């Protein structure tokens, strides 16, 4: 198993621990976005605890903020803090590890939570980079259910208008949201066409849970000039845990002890 795949499995193990202990979080989306977070934090982005105030650091925004639990685990694994603190206190009384991205947590750029803000805030960060002639890139990760929010399209329009090739969005396209499939709830297809219409470069990743494919996509995106890039990552909700995969009921499902043991067993087997 390659290093990144192992990392993403480790991240899944943290996520399972965090959501089981807290009885909170959005495990389905956490697991679908786990490989995207792994690739961005451990291969692509120029971020580290030492550089957290460096103006040249890459910027990351989790627009699908309800998957903050996965992000807290990724930042912990990256060394921003002890991941066990996050796992033990997530959503507990007085914790800084609240249910949506919180700036009090090292490595989090801005407070998030309501959907449809990421692209626009990312446009601001990318514009500031151009203005200051800085080379950092801005990465925004969105959910596909989130793409029903109209504000996304204002942000997409501005990013295309200003040719922000230092902005890279990712859609974690797991095809499921809380009430069912995105196709049933609110059909946003084709997202690729929508981004193209707003003058974006589109890279589709057939298996958005494959780290190697994601790395190639992000490397290609970084080299693309004159347009912002969106990586449309076709992922599996609940990826990596057999009974959670492709089930909208696991959007924010809570595991029984038996299910938890089963999930741990499946991940330990892969890690071994």
């Amino acid at each position, binding site marked *: 198993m390659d290093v990144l795949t192992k990392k993403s499995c480790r991240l899944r193990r943290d996520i399972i621990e965090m959501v089981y202990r807290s009885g909170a979080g959005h495990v389905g989306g956490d697991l679908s976005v786990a490989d995207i977070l792994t690739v961005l934090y451990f291969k692509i982005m120029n971020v580290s605890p030492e550089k957290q105030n460096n103006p040249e650091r890459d910027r990351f925004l989790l627009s699908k903020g309800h998957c903050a639990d996965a992000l807290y685990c990724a930042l912990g694994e990256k060394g921003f803090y002890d991941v066990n603190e996050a796992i033990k206190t997530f959503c507990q009384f007085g914790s800084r590890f609240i249910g949506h991205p919180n*700036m009090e947590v090292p490595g989090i750029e801005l407070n998030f939570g309501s959907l449809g803000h990421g692209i626009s*805030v990312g446009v*601001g960060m990318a514009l*500031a980079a151009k203005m200051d002639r800085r080379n950092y890139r801005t990465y925004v990760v969105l959910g596909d259910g989130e793409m029903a929010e109209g504000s996304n399209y*204002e942000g997409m329009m501005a990013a295309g208008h200003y040719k922000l090739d230092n902005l890279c969005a990712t859609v974690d396209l797991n095809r499921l949201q809380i009430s069912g499939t995105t196709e049933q709830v609110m059909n946003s297809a084709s997202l690729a066409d929508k981004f193209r219409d707003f003058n974006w470069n589109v890279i589709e990743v057939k298996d958005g849970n494959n780290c190697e494919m994601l790395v190639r996509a992000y490397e290609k995106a970084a080299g693309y000039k004159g347009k912002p890039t969106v990586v449309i990552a076709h992922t599996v909700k609940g990826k990596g845990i057999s009974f959670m995969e492709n089930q909208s009921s696991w959007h924010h499902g809570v595991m029984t002890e038996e299910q938890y043991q089963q999930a741990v067993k499946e991940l330990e087997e892969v890690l071994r």
Partner: protein
Amino acid sequence: MNKVTNRQVICDTLLKAAETDRDIVVLCSDSRGSASITPFARQYPEQFVELGIAEQNLVSVAAGMASCGKTAFAVSPASFLSTRSYEQAKIDVAYSMTNVTLVGISGGISYGALGMSHHSCQDIAAFSALPDMRVYLPSDRFQIGRLIQELLKDQKPAYVRVSRSATEDVYGEDMEFELNKAIVISEGADVMLIACGEMVPYAVKAAELLQREGISAGVIDMYCLKPLDEETILRYARQVKCLVTVEEHSYFGGLGSLTAQVTAGKYPIRVTQIALPDGHLISGTNHEVFHYYHMDGPGIANTVKITLAEVRADAVCVGN
């Protein structure tokens, strides 16, 4: 009569500040003309960002830029800025404490003949309720200049509302200004009028009319709605027979509500609220509308007299 609008002064102040500060950015939503900010856009095109008619994006982009070290001014009609982009103001500006000043132009009923869609008579209530958001309604051109200079010195979120037309001068170049400190324009022993924004000159006029009739009326310019200068309100609450608030805003959650909240809790006194009625407003120029709703000088003076008569009657009742 002054012809210089407050929005022009905002532009002049930012132009001056941008001479030495490359991090000042102004963002508009197809509103550079109505905001009188075109001179800034021309002189500093690299520090100006046009977002088109998209107020949600305007505010989020401003927050993103601010988080990367910019001092952002997002300028758009107050009606849209305070409602369409309210969530962006709540999360990306206030909650994330980004260095963004939201400038609501043509505030209140500046667009008096354009209908309720273009009024912003809820902005004080809306923005005051956001944790960490500051709310300012400056009165004249001298005060807006000083306010913007002060806001440039800190990194915190703020909302500033200005009206469309030029406002009568209340102060002069040498005015004394302290951020978050109300300005006592004149002293009164019977009544203090507490006004904000464009209503301040009307309140000053009312006080003059009352003085002529032997009523001792003073005026407080409460341009800082949040943080509200409670100390000044309570100081005068203890000295006068009643307070009368005057605002270009709904009855709900504006200057009158905020004032009554302070006095009710700390020094109960009669507070009469002069505000725009809760319903469809009549169309017209701002002065016509204020006159119609008895919010101009004579109208305010009349309400003060009625209030004082009621306060006297209450005192007699209590005496019996």
